[in-house]
């Protein structure tokens, strides 16, 4: 805040502006450019010249136009009121913009990210005279029915609490408390700024050990992710990246979802906006929007703001994590973000690395994913951020740089398969190419549910791997040429695919599958495999098994039995066992 720095534009090349006379400006400070005072960020300092990337359409900008900077880094405003909001990449409220300038986004519009007039019911939790430091909780607000919002003494402040207000309604601009610090008195409010490019401090990082339950069978059972983990969803167009992200945003059991639409379709954000207020979370009976923050910088909005949007999103996530919440960040799509980097670096004349991407792509990706994690917060409780990033490889080719670098920094890889998507098998997550490194971290959680969990899961995966191997043979000689036991393996693998892995996210029952139900379904299929295989080995014709009505019913269990009635799966299993038993008698009788 060393006063206003005034400079002058000397050249304009797309969103990159060169300015002179910016003495005292620092890297990543905000600059306001031209008569419309477009928002930009200083990204390079070369002698007298400052390079500024402008976050808005800068058509009409001329050399000679004024550039102003307060010497403050690009920051987001953090405070109550973020939940249920939708922002653009630089945290301007889209609802407010629509009210002010209609259906299109005008240039240079400036609005506060948070409602400055709304009164929040504050409950003070500290008394004056107490010793406070960064991380001390001094009050709380019920931000939505689901979210308790804690007012925490910010980073770098410690001393004696000299005053704190009574319980009551306050706006984010009211002074709530004062602290006598070594540097002088500090006035604390409910909201404050934080620079987007700096991770917020924590006490200590921990190893994730609880799964993020998503209700999606292929994820929870086959390729689970831990709370505080990282995952990538790579897939060519039409393979269902966004649908998978939506399903996770809807049903995963995080406290808060930060959904970042980064360079994607406008209508997809509209879909989230129209659907989430009406979708009720079964776990707490509240609309999903009450736990969601949205950042929408769609593909037709300015490219530089796309670059910053994922930092805006993850900073908001960190803010809620610091209160002890579990936050899931959906970034759709990180490839568009990488392309924004490429576009800007090419205008800066950087020497490109692979496919025109800048050499620092990998570093930037690593920095982003590193902001995930389970941590002990400064305020005491544990909080976590799970980051799930969609990747859109050109031509669906996973060997391209963004997919390759991302796979180095994430521990869960849910590869989407074009062939599955073409057959409308959703989620089209490939069971061959996907992997997770969290299996052993979260094993104990599942074992509390059922000690056989890992055995069951591995048995099912092995059947699918065997199926994959046999399919190569089938392509050459046809299924009928295989031994009957292998034919039976193929049949069961098909059953796992159709009765377990394929999941309809628009079906009232199937959209969310509880861990109990997942386990029971899979065990039922494995029962068929184990008992059936014995019969087949003993010489029973496969058709005697597969053509049993009860067996062909299996594929309908997932969509006909609700999560709360899983005992019906047990009943089915018993029936199945009896039926297979009776087949055994048939076999012996012959």
């Amino acid at each position, binding site marked *: 805040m060393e006063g206003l720095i005034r400079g002058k534009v000397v050249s*304009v090349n797309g969103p990159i502006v060169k300015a002179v006379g910016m003495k005292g400006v620092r890297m990543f400070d905000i600059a306001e450019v031209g008569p419309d005072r477009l928002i930009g960020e200083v990204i390079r300092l070369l002698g007298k010249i400052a390079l500024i990337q402008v976050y808005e359409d800068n058509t009409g900008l001329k050399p000679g136009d004024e550039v102003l900077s307060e010497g403050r880094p690009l920051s987001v405003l953090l405070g109550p009121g973020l939940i249920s909001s939708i922002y653009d990449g630089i945290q301007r409220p889209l609802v407010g913009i629509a009210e002010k300038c209609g259906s299109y986004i005008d240039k240079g519009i400036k609005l506060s990210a948070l409602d400055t007039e709304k009164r929040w019911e504050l409950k003070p939790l500290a008394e004056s005279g107490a010793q406070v430091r960064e991380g001390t909780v001094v009050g709380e607000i019920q931000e939505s029915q689901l979210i308790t919002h804690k007012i925490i003494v910010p980073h770098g402040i410690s001393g004696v609490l000299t005053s704190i207000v009574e319980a009551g309604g306050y706006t984010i601009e009211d002074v709530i408390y004062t602290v006598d610090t070594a540097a002088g008195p500090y006035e604390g409010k409910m909201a404050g700024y934080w620079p987007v490019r700096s991770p917020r401090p924590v006490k200590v990082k921990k190893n994730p050990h609880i799964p993020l339950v998503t209700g999606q069978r292929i994820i929870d059972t086959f390729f689970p992710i831990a709370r505080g983990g990282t995952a990538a969803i790579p897939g060519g167009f039409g393979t269902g990246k966004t649908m998978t992200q939506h399903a996770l945003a809807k049903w995963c059991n995080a406290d808060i979802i930060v959904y970042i639409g980064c360079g994607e379709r406008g209508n997809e954000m509209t879909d989230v906006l129209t659907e989430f207020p009406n979708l009720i979370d079964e776990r707490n009976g509240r609309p999903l929007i009450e736990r969601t923050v949205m950042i929408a910088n769609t593909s037709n*909005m300015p490219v530089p703001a796309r670059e910053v949007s994922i930092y805006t999103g993850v900073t908001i996530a960190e803010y809620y994590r610091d209160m002890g919440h579990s936050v899931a960040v959906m970034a759709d799509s990180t490839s568009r973000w990488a392309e924004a980097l490429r576009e800007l670096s090419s205008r800066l004349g950087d020497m490109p690395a692979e496919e025109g991407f800048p050499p620092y792509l990998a570093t930037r990706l690593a920095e982003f994913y590193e902001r995930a994690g389970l941590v002990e917060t400064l305020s005491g409780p544990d909080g976590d951020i799970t980051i799930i990033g969609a990747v859109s490889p050109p031509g669906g080719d996973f060997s391209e740089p963004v997919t390759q670098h991302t796979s180095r920094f994430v521990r869960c890889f849910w590869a989407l398969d074009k062939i599955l998507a*073409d057959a409308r098998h959703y989620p089209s997550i490939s069971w061959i190419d996907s992997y997770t490194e969290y299996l052993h971290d979260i094993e104990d959680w599942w074992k509390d549910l059922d000690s056989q969990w890992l055995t069951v899961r591995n048995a099912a995966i092995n059947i699918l791997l065997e199926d994959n191997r046999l399919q190569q043979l089938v392509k050459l000689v046809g299924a009928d040429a295989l031994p009957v036991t292998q034919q039976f393996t193929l049949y069961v693998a098909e059953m796992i695919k159709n009765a377990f892995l394929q999941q309809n996210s628009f079906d009232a029952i199937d959209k969310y599958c509880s861990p109990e139900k997942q386990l029971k379904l899979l065990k039922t299929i494995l029962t068929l495999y184990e008992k059936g295989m014995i019969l087949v080995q003993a010489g029973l014709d496969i058709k005697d098994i597969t053509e049993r009505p009860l067996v062909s019913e299996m594929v309908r269990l997932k*969509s006909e039995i609700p999560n709360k009635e899983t005992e019906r799966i047990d009943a089915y299993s018993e029936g199945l066992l009896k039926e297979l038993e009776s087949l055994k008698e048939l076999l012996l009788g012959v």
Partner: protein
Amino acid sequence: MAFEIEYTNIGGISGPLIFVQGVRGVGLGEIVEIRDGSTLRVGQTLEVDEDKAVVQVFEGTSGLALEGMRVAFVGSALEVPVDRAMLGRVFDGLGRPIDGFPQVISELRMNVNGLPVNPWSREYPRDFIQTGISAIDGMNTLIRGQKLPIFSGSGMPHNLIAAQIARQAMILTEEEEFTVIFAAMGVKFDVARFFIDSLEESGVLTHSAIFLSLADAPSIERLITPRVALTLAEHLAFEEGMHVLVILTDMTNYCESLRELSSSRGEIPSRKGYPGYLYSDLASIYERAGRLKGYNGSITQMPMLSMPSDDISHPVPDLTGYITEGQIVLERELFNKGIYPPIAGLPSLSRLMKDGIGEGRTRGDHAQVAAQLFASYAKVKRIRSLAAIVGEEELSQLDKVYLSFGENFEEHFLAQGEHENRTIEQTLEIGWKMLSLLPQEELYRICREDIQRYYMSEENLECRI
């Protein structure tokens, strides 16, 4: 514009670009008039420095010399007049009439680049458009406000399909106004002629506006053509409340012009020489489709693009597919079999279909029928590739049933006449007839009630193999 300064100090000409020196106070994206003798060309600034500006010339630079050229910067970005009176007219790629009638007089001029739509202000598109083509209505439903491209290859009948959609989609609307805007970028004259004739035949030419930047026009002009067309579309949809279908052909030519421009600017290329910002540039066109809260009208976009050597992973179809809400893919194999329309069963997709169909919109069983047809046809493809190796004789009984289903599906469901207009009920009936060829256990994507109601119906029972 009381008086304009004209600059004559030209530093260089390269491709569609000219470099003007000694300029003062010129803004980015400003419109430039270039006079060379008596001819007038229009351009736009791409880059401005303290004393020089890079200008792209829409009409191309051929015939320009460093001397004798006068350049004036006329302020503001490129604007075109928009008015209802433009319907029934034919324009060049920059929006100037070429049908022999006078310039359209309109007080309203709009910036061709438009402004980004606030995602909050969008209305999610849900209204089904019946195109009368089973492969589209049944399996890849088109929704009002959707952007659904046709990926084609050389020689394939994408123009016929687009014309059929334009004709048949318009018939349904009686109370609402429907209009077609046709923008041709770098296509041959006969293609443009075909569209004009086809629109005329069905009597909709008077409600259409046509923008032609044909193959012999300067390539740089093509970068403006779709924007001019969409600017008019936005006016008609959101000011006049019309439902506008915008056909853009051929986007591959557009992208090639962009590549040409990028390379003459000396930019670092990404895949196949296309600029790194191709995605964002295409998005600035495609994202201008949609519906807005509080407005009746809609813009439905149907861009057409040819996949060089039928390669769907080529950057143009690839990036298009990432932006548009699905794609209709034409398949060489079906085309060679003589099936019209040769719409590929599997890679085609409509992302907005899920919310635009079902009870009260099309029919309750629509989603499941489509899902089952996709799944079963996918199996046909697998069996076919198997049969190619082991021979049909070696296939199991069930596999043979699938092959027969596949043949019938292609001949009766996918294939139809160029002037055949099927209702959605007819499409679904044919769909059920096809599914009835399969044993009941195979219909695992369909709920029991619908199986009972349709699969077990008398006429469908007769279809069993």
